[in-house]
């Protein structure tokens, strides 16, 4: 919460109470997630095999503690939320708290990232990295689109030559650059 609109720290304020309400579902899910993970940890800990040779404190004790801490934190969070205590979104130099959340950008960034993961082995690291850089820059507002892709390609090839070629990281060059010697360590 950074800018004046973020006076949202005060749920009393009519305008901001609305904003808080809008954010409540997600926060509730986050708190429930903590609680659910805690319950899962407590239940799943019972399946950890305790060998006969185990010391006084076996492999289950610490997980039980962690599960209990998660459950405790989750319950405290839920109680806090019910009383209207909301989390403060983290601020930052480039975070504009006055604009509504742009879910489309987040979804597209995730999609671009997934595409990168899936293509590393098929089209090779340099092209997959070009896709990642160009794609996310365009999603974040880089124009014209071809400049973002060109910059991405230059950056990716540089990284490939420096880290793959010179430092010997085995980044897969992919079919297109397979024959270029400097791209392989």
């Amino acid at each position, binding site marked *: 919460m950074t800018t004046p609109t973020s006076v949202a720290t005060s749920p009393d304020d009519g305008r901001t109470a609305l904003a808080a309400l809008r954010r409540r579902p997600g926060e509730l899910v986050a708190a429930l997630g903590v609680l659910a993970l805690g319950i899962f940890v407590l239940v799943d800990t019972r399946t950890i095999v305790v060998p006969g040779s185990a010391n006084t404190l076996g492999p289950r004790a610490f997980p039980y503690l962690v599960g209990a801490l998660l459950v405790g934190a989750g319950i405290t969070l839920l109680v806090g939320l019910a009383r209207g205590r909301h989390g403060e*979104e983290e601020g930052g130099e480039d975070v504009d708290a006055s604009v509504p959340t*742009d879910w489309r950008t987040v979804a597209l960034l995730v999609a671009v990232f997934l595409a990168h993961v899936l293509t590393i082995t098929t089209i090779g690291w340099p092209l997959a990295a070009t896709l990642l850089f160009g794609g996310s820059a365009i999603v974040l507002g880089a124009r014209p689109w071809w400049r973002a892709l060109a910059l991405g390609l230059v950056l990716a090839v540089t990284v490939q030559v420096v880290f793959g070629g010179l430092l010997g990281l085995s980044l897969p060059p992919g079919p297109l650059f397979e024959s270029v010697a400097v791209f392989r360590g």
Partner: protein
Amino acid sequence: MDNLAALLDGFATVAQPQYLLYALFGVFVGTAVGVLPGIGPAMTIALLLPLTYSLDATAAIIVFAGIYYGGMYGGSTTSILLNTPGESASIVTALEGHKMARLGRGAAALATAAIGSFVAGTIATVALTFVAPVVARWAVQLGEPDYFALMVVAFVTVGALLGSSVSRGLAALALGLFLGLVGTDTLTGQQRFTFGVPSFADGVDVVVVAVGLFAVGEALHVGSRLRHGPVHLVPVERGWRSWMRREDWRRSWKPWLRGTAIGFPVGTIPAGGADVATFLSYATEKKLAGPHRAEFGKGAIEGVAGPESANNAAASGVLVPLLTLGLPTTATAAIIIVAFQSYGIQPGPLLFESQSSLVWALVASLYVGNLMLVVLNLPLVGMWVKVLQIPRHYLYAGILLFGALGSFALNFAPVDVLVLLGVGLLGFVMRRYGYPVAPLVVGMILGPMAEDRLRRSLAISQGDLTTLVASPFAATAYGVMALLLVAGLWLKRRERAAGAVTSGHSSDDTSGHSSDDASGHASDDVSGPASGSEQDAGHDPGSGTRPSHAATSEETNR
């Protein structure tokens, strides 16, 4: 005396040309990532870990030390010129520093911050040189329960004192502890929470978690609320003459020394790290400012000199428990521990004996790095300003690219990059709903060590739980922890009050000066200092129900 001899050996190591180059590379990269929003030293070191496996341990540690120190210097440049601090430790610098920059005294603010950082960094490194071996010698006598007590103290203080909400901090800590559990139990060889996935048998890689939280999470979060349009910076006057006038020196040197005296001890105890130190220093300077007190909130040089020094001194102080006890008290320190471990080195009391040459080379590189930083920083301000102006879409695209590269380079398996995305989404959710990220990292790294200590303690005592509090040290540690908690929560109130006063001033100031801001981004100016105070103010259980300005004035009156 043999410490000095060892330190001289360390200098001899660092003076070799290739290590000097590594140190230069480290401070350079560190300053760059400190200047750039969105990335910090913790993430950079995590990212570089897989890429520096080909270096020898000394070279890698020197690079990481440079990044650690450089990040501290770089942060002040950003907060003075951009007034939207990245790390909480530089919020205070933004309060006064940005006001100075707007009054046309930006160069003086940058200079007092840099020189103050140098003075503090050097004095604190000297203190580290003498304090650390003493602590290490004493720490050798600590038993398993004592270490466990120390770790519990670190957990509680990092979880409850970092960030603004205690329950969210503890939730993040517990998440980190859970991630630390995933993998094969070291004592019994049993798999825990691996979900039958083979790549989880070795545990979730810390590099993936750190990069995912700090890089991918941050990029997604910024993407969700990107501040569009060009980056607004306060122009800095050119030329040596404008850096520091005689008057500025006269007003700065005492705050430098006081900041150091506050920062180093605060850094050594696990009490929330550098931000507590900066706020304490700010409050002290304000109290002692005398005739200049009225300038506070409008650009008082003492308010930059003191906190910046405290910030750097605390950064050195953090190294004391890190090197002598293996106890990380900040996210960056936790990553540095991982860096040591990746070279098979376990920080702890024996480090000064078993890896003596490495440790002293590290300490020597801190002296050298400080010198490099003060030389690099001031003349290169123009370049850092350019770095700050990188278009944000390219900056965050680049962060994503290098994050993906770092994770892929771990095992050259795309699945690591997929896990990175998952952790990134977690980081996004955490940022969005106000869960601090640092406790997660500390919990994940320190968790397995704590479990180890706990189980060994109880194995020795044959299950007798009283062994955990039986030793005087452990009992004292738990007692001090209770005190720290009370003191820490009290300090948070003070911080809020300090921040609130200035944020009040800043909004007055903005209305007066908004003509400077051609682009209608006047609101940007309040955002920096206000973010600090509001983040905390909103979190006070109970006080979160008033409009913030009403809340702030009440805080002040109290």
